[in-house]
């Protein structure tokens, strides 16, 4: 796989990439929305946001974060665990069945205040056969909605897996990159990038 920009441990390059994303956004785009296939990486992302002194809403808030009054409705910056109890009643976990995450992604795509979508994909024997493919249509749809509004939706993603997994790490990451997503070598770094975007969005607002 050709080396993505973000494999280079170069903070300046990452900041510049964030800036390039912001340049294409409309002023009302200001929120980060993380839709996680499970709790662990959602908690990790919250811990990273907390470290960056950024507060988010979540349906599984870590200490110091805010609880979403309605897990089905994001508010401001939100990191949502789509594998939480309320989403798996009578249906398989989102690592297997992407239906609810796909619908939520479509919902976020309709929200003109969303600047960044943060997504995780987990490969392996207990995951769907094509986790990225299950969301690709919704990702492209959300990007298109933003384009029609004259904006740009940044999609920051990570794929947890190996080329030994049946879904293939390279194949999954490539499909995301082909769709214009920024693919990071870890979920932690994808969350860190979103913190940087969030900071730049706040600075842009203040500068106005």
């Amino acid at each position: 796989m050709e080396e993505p920009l973000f494999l280079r441990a170069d903070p300046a390059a990452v900041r510049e990439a964030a800036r390039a994303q912001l340049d294409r956004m409309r002023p009302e785009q200001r929120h980060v929305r993380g839709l996680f296939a499970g709790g662990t990486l959602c908690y990790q992302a919250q811990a990273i946001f907390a470290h960056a002194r950024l507060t988010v809403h979540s349906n599984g808030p870590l200490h110091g974060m805010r609880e979403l009054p309605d897990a089905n409705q994001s508010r401001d910056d939100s990191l949502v665990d789509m594998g939480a109890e309320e989403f798996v009643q009578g249906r398989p976990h989102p690592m297997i069945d992407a239906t609810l995450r796909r619908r939520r992604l479509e919902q976020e795509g309709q929200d003109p205040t969303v600047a960044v979508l943060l997504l995780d994909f987990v490969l392996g024997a207990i995951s769907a056969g094509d986790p990225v493919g299950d969301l690709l249509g919704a990702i492209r749809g959300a990007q298109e909605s933003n384009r029609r509004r004259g904006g740009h939706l940044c999609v920051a993603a990570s794929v947890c897996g190996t080329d030994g997994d049946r879904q293939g790490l390279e194949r999954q990451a490539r499909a995301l990159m082909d769709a214009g997503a920024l693919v990071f070598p870890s979920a932690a770094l994808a969350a860190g990038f979103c913190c940087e975007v969030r900071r730049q969005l706040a600075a842009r607002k203040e500068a106005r």
Partner: protein
Amino acid sequence: MAARQPGEVVPLAELLQGKPVFVNVGVREFGDSLRQAGYEVVEVDWSPPAGGDAQLAALLDDLL
């Protein structure tokens, strides 16, 4: 459950007849609810061998 010899084959049905003893590998907190429920939990001190990527960790630190 009677003490077993290492390598002894245990019929599957017997596993459900006595009070189970749990082996918890890694994060100790995962065994807490079992301990609170009165079960014996054997802890195995383990962490993933990967150790992380120092360069990427430094990048994340820098971004935060």
